[in-house]
C-alpha cells in the first residue's frame, strides 16, 4: 500500500468512526448501544493481548481483572456502600484512574508468585485466580464470622454480594446526556479505546515491547541477553490488567449495575477466543477477532436461528424448526478455538508461517555460503568508544575453586580459571567434561555449589543472568538460541535492552530523549549487523537465516550488550571451512581492536590453538591442564584425555 492510499484509508476510517452514531440515528438502526458494548470487549481483548500475544503468558483468568476494574468503579462510585466519592461531577473521571491502578496492582499481585512457574502451570494459576475472584466477590457481600458463639463479624457487606452493585455513578460532562443517549458512551469508549491502542502501539515498538517478545520466544536466552524476565512479565501483567481496569469501569458505569456473574470463566475464554482468532500479538488481528466474535455472538447467531427455523418449517424437520442457535454460542466458541489452533494457529491476521528451509548437511554443502570477511574498519565506532574505558591491570574474570554437582555427579570440580583483559582463553575437553556447565555457572544460569567468580573485582555468584549481562559478560549458546519469530534487527535490539533506559511513560509519550535513544539504538544495531555481515538481512525473521548467519547473529546480539567479556560456546560448530575462517578472524579482531576478552569453548583444535593465548583443559569436571597452546599440545594428560592411554602423542 502506498503512503497516500494508506493515509486515505486512515482518513476514511476516522470519518467513518465519527459519523457512524449520527448515521445510525438518522437511519433508526439503534445499534450504537450494542456496538459500544462490543468495543468494551475489544478493549479487553487488546489488554489480554499484551499478556498472551506479546509476553506469551497464557492467561485464563483475565475476566478477574475486568471484575476488579468494574468493582473498583462500582464500589467507589456508588451509594450502595456509602462511598464518599459518589455524587460529584468528577467522581467517574477520578475513579476510572483508580480502577486502572487497582487492576494493575492486582496484576502484579497475581503475577508475582507465578513468575517462576512454567507456561501451562501459569495458565492454570491464572484460571484459579479467575475462579477465586468471583467467589470472593459473592461471599464478601455477607460475611459473618462466628467463633464459639462469639460474633466477630456480623453480616458485613464489602462487595454487594450476589446482588451486585447498583446504581453506579455515570460520567458527567456539562451538557452531555450520558443518562439518555448511547452516543456519548460510544465516543467515550472510542476515545479510551484509541488512546489505549496508541499506547499499545508505542509500547510494542519500544524496548519494553521487544523484551516481552524476547521472553515469549525464549526466556532463558532473553535472560542471558540482559532482559530481566521477572520485571518484564510483571510489567506485562500490570499493563494488561490496567487496560481492563479502564474497560471494567466504563462497563460498570454504562450498565449501571454489576453482578459477580458477569465475570465468570466463560468471559475469559471469549476474550481469549478474540485474541487467538485474530492473531495473538497483532493489534489489528485482535481488533478484527474481537469484532468478528461480537458480531457473531450478537448478530449471526440470532439471525441464523431465524433462517434455520424457516428452513426447518419448510422441510418439515421439527428439530430444525425449534432450534435456538444462541444456546450454542459457547459450543461455537469452543469449536472456534479448536479450528483456529488446528488450521491457522497464527490467527486470521497473523503473519503466515513461511515454510522453514530445511537446514541439513547437504544443503550447507550444496550452497556453500561464503561469509564476508571481517574488516577492521567495519567495527562499529560506538563499540570502539566503549572499549576505550577498559583499562589494563587486574584480571577481568577470576574463577577460583568453582564446583557444581548434579545429584552425585560432579560436573565442575574445583576449577580455577583466569581471564586477563584483552585475552582469548580456550576452554577445551572431551564431550561431557563440564565446559558448558562451567559457562552456565559463570553466566548465572546455574548456581555454583562452591567457589568464587569475580568479575572486575566484584563477585558474580548469586546474580541473575540478566544482571551478569549488565555487568559486562555476554554469551552465545552451543545450540543457537535466537528469538526465532523476531527480525534480525530486533534480535540485536534486544541485546541493547540493558543499555537503554526508556520506561513505560517514556515509551508511550516518547519525549525527545527516548526518541534519540531509540534512533541511536537502531543505528548501533545496524552497524553491528554490517560488522558481522548481515546488513542486508535486518528485516528477515531470525529463524529463516541459514545456519552460519544465525551463529553470527547470535554473536552480534551478544556484542550489542556491550560486553567486556564474551563467552562463546562452540561458535564454529556446523560451519564450513570458509565460515570458520571468517569467524576466527572476527574473534581475533574483537580482541585486537576492542580489547574485548573472549572465553571460548571449541572443538575445532585448529581454531583453538591458533587464536587462544592460553588454554584450560577440563576432563570429568576437573582442570587437568592449563597453559599456552604449545604446552597444551604436548601435555601428557591432555593427550590421554583425548586419545586414551597407550597412545604416543601424534605429530600434528
Amino acid at each position, binding site marked *: 500500500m502506498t503512503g497516500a492510499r494508506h493515509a486515505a484509508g486512515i482518513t476514511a476510517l476516522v470519518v467513518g468512526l465519527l459519523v457512524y452514531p449520527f448515521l445510525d440515528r438518522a437511519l433508526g438502526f439503534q445499534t450504537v448501544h450494542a456496538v459500544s458494548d462490543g468495543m468494551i470487549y475489544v478493549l479487553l481483548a487488546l489488554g489480554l493481548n499484551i499478556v498472551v500475544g506479546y509476553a506469551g503468558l497464557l492467561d*485464563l483468568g483475565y475476566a478477574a481483572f475486568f471484575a476488579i476494574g468494574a468493582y473498583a468503579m462500582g464500589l467507589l462510585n456508588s451509594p450502595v456502600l456509602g462511598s464518599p466519592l459518589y455524587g460529584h461531577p468528577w467522581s467517574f473521571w477520578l475513579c476510572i484512574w483508580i480502577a486502572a491502578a487497582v487492576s494493575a496492582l492486582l496484576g502484579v499481585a497475581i503475577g508475582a508468585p*507465578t513468575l517462576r512457574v512454567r507456561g501451562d502451570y501459569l*495458565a492454570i494459576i491464572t484460571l*484459579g485466580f479467575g475462579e*477465586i475472584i468471583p*467467589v*470472593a466477590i*459473592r461471599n464478601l457481600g455477607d460475611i459473618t464470622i462466628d467463633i464459639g458463639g462469639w460474633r466477630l463479624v456480623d453480616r458485613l457487606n464489602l462487595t454487594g454480594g450476589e446482588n451486585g452493585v447498583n446504581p453506579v455513578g455515570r460520567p458527567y460532562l456539562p451538557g452531555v446526556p450520558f443518562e439518555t443517549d448511547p452516543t456519548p458512551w460510544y465516543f467515550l469508549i472510542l476515545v479510551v479505546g484509541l488512546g489505549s491502542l496508541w499506547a499499545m502501539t508505542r509500547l510494542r515498538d519500544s524496548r519494553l515491547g521487544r523484551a516481552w517478545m524476547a521472553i515469549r520466544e525464549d526466556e532463558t536466552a532473553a535472560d542471558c541477553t540482559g532482559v530481566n524476565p521477572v520485571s518484564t512479565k510483571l510489567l506485562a501483567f500490570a499493563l494488561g490488567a490496567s487496560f481492563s481496569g479502564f474497560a471494567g469501569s466504563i462497563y460498570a458505569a454504562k450498565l449501571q449495575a454489576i453482578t459477580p456473574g458477569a465475570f465468570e470463566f466463560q468471559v475469559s475464554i471469549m476474550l481469549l477466543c478474540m485474541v487467538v482468532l485474530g492473531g495473538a500479538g497483532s493489534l489489528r488481528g485482535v481488533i478484527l477477532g474481537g469484532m468478528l466474535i461480537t458480531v457473531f455472538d450478537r448478530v449471526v447467531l440470532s439471525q441464523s436461528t431465524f433462517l434455520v427455523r424457516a428452513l426447518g418449517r419448510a422441510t418439515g424437520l421439527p428439530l430444525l424448526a425449534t432450534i435456538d442457535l444462541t444456546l450454542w454460542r459457547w459450543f461455537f466458541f*469452543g469449536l472456534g478455538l*479448536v479450528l483456529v489452533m488446528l488450521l491457522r494457529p497464527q490467527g486470521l491476521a497473523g503473519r503466515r508461517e513461511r515454510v522453514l528451509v530445511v537446514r541439513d548437511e547437504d544443503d550447507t554443502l550444496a550452497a556453500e555460503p561464503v561469509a564476508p570477511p571481517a574488516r577492521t574498519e567495519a567495527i562499529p565506532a560506538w563499540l570502539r568508544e566503549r572499549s576505550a574505558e577498559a583499562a589494563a591491570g587486574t584480571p577481568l574474570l577470576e574463577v577460583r575453586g568453582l564446583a557444581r554437582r548434579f545429584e552425585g555427579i560432579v560436573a565442575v570440580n574445583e576449577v580455577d580459571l583466569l581471564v586477563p583483559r584483552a585475552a582469548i582463553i580456550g576452554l577445551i575437553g572431551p564431550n561431557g567434561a563440564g565446559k558448558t556447565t562451567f559457562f552456565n555457572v559463570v553466566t548465572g544460569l546455574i548456581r555454583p555449589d562452591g567457589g568464587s567468580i569475580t568479575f572486575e573485582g566484584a563477585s558474580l555468584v548469586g546474580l541473575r543472568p540478566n544482571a551478569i549481562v549488565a555487568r559486562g559478560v555476554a554469551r552465545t549458546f552451543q545450540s543457537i538460541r535466537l528469538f526465532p519469530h523476531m527480525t534480525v534487527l530486533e534480535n540485536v535490539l534486544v541485546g541493547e535492552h540493558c543499555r537503554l533506559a526508556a520506561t513505560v511513560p517514556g515509551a508511550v509519550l516518547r519525549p525527545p530523549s527516548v526518541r534519540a535513544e531509540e534512533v541511536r539504538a537502531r543505528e548501533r544495531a545496524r552497524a553491528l549487523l554490517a560488522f558481522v555481515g548481515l546488513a542486508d538481512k535486518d528485516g528477515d525473521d531470525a529463524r529463516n537465516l541459514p545456519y552460519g548467519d544465525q551463529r553470527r547473529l547470535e554473536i552480534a546480539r551478544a556484542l550489542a550488550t556491550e560486553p567486556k567479556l564474551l563467552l562463546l560456546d562452540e561458535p564454529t560448530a556446523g560451519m564450513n571451512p570458509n565460515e570458520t575462517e571468517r569467524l576466527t578472524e572476527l574473534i581475533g579482531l574483537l580482541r585486537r581492536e576492542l580489547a574485548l576478552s573472549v572465553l571460548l569453548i571449541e572443538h575445532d583444535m585448529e581454531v583453538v590453538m591458533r587464536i587462544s593465548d592460553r588454554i584450560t583443559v577440563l576432563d570429568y569436571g576437573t582442570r587437568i591442564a592449563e597453559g599456552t597452546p604449545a604446552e597444551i599440545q604436548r601435555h601428557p594428560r591432555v593427550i590421554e584425555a583425548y586419545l586414551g592411554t597407550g597412545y604416543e602423542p601424534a605429530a600434528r
Partner: protein
Amino acid sequence: MNWWEVLVQQTINGITRGSVFALIAMGYTMVYGIIELINFAHGDVFMLGLFVSLTWFTLLGVTKTMTGLQLITLLPLVFVLTMLTTAALNVAIDRVAYRPLRRSPRLAPLITAIGVSFMLENLALLWKGPAPIAYPDVFPSVEILGGWFGLDSAIFLTTKDVLVIAATVPLMIGLHYFVTHTRWGKAMRATAQDRETAQAMGINVERTILVTFLVGGALAGAAGLIQGMYYNIGMWWMGYQAGLRAFTAAVLGGIGSMGGAALGGLVIGFLSAWSDQYISARWTNAIVFSILILVLVFRPHGLLGERAADKT
C-alpha cells in the same frame, strides 16, 4: 451429633468424594506424564460418563433399584460399556484436537483442550437441558451401621459408600498392575520419560499415547458412573468443577505419579468435605483453588512427584 461423629461423617464423605477425584486425577496425570498436556476436557469426559452410563442403564431396562441378580450381571456390564464409551471418546478427542499439534508450542494443545471442553459441556447442555437431571437410584442404599449391625449411631454409612470403595480400589490396583507389569505399561513409562528415546527403542509412541487416552477415558467413565449412582444427580457443568478439583489432586500428589494422584484425590476429598462442614460450602471452591495455586507455586512437583528437570 457429637463433634467427633460429625468429623467421622465428613471423613467418610471425604473418602467417597476423594475416590472419584482420584479416578479422574489418574487420567490427568497419565496424559500429562506422557505428552505434557493439561487435558482440560478430561473433566467433561467424566461428566459425559455420568450421562452415558444413564443411557446404558436405560437401554438395558434398569430404571429403578437393581435386585441381587442384576447387581452381579448388569452393573458390571454397565461399567464396561460406559468405560468403553468414554475411552473411545477420549481417544477421539486426542486424535482430532491434540494429535495434529504434537510438535506445536505447548500452549497450542492447551487452547484446543479448552475449546473441546467448551464443546463437550455445551453438547451436554443441549442434550440434557440446563436443569440438573435426576439419576435413578439404581444401586440399593442400605444403612450399614444401623441397619445391619443395629448400632445406635448418628454416623450414616451406606452400601453406596462401600460401592465407591469396592469399585475404586480394584480399578486402582488394576491400573497399577497395568502400568508396572504389562508391555503397554512399560511403553507408557518409557514414553513418559523420553519420547524420542522410546521411539528409537522401537516403541510405537503414537499407539502408546492412544492407550494412555484409552485408559484415562475409561477411568473417567467409571468415575462418572460411580458419581451418578452415589449422588443421583448430574449437571452439564459438573465436569468443569470436578475436573479442576481432580487436576488439583493430580498436581498436589505430583503430576505424572499414579500414587500421587490417588493420594491427592483423597486429600482434596477430605479438604473439600471438611471445608463444606467447618467453613462454608460457598468458600470451598476458593479454598481448593488456593491450594492449587500454592502447590503450583511452591511445590510444583507435588507431594510424591519427582522434580521434573526443566529442559533449558
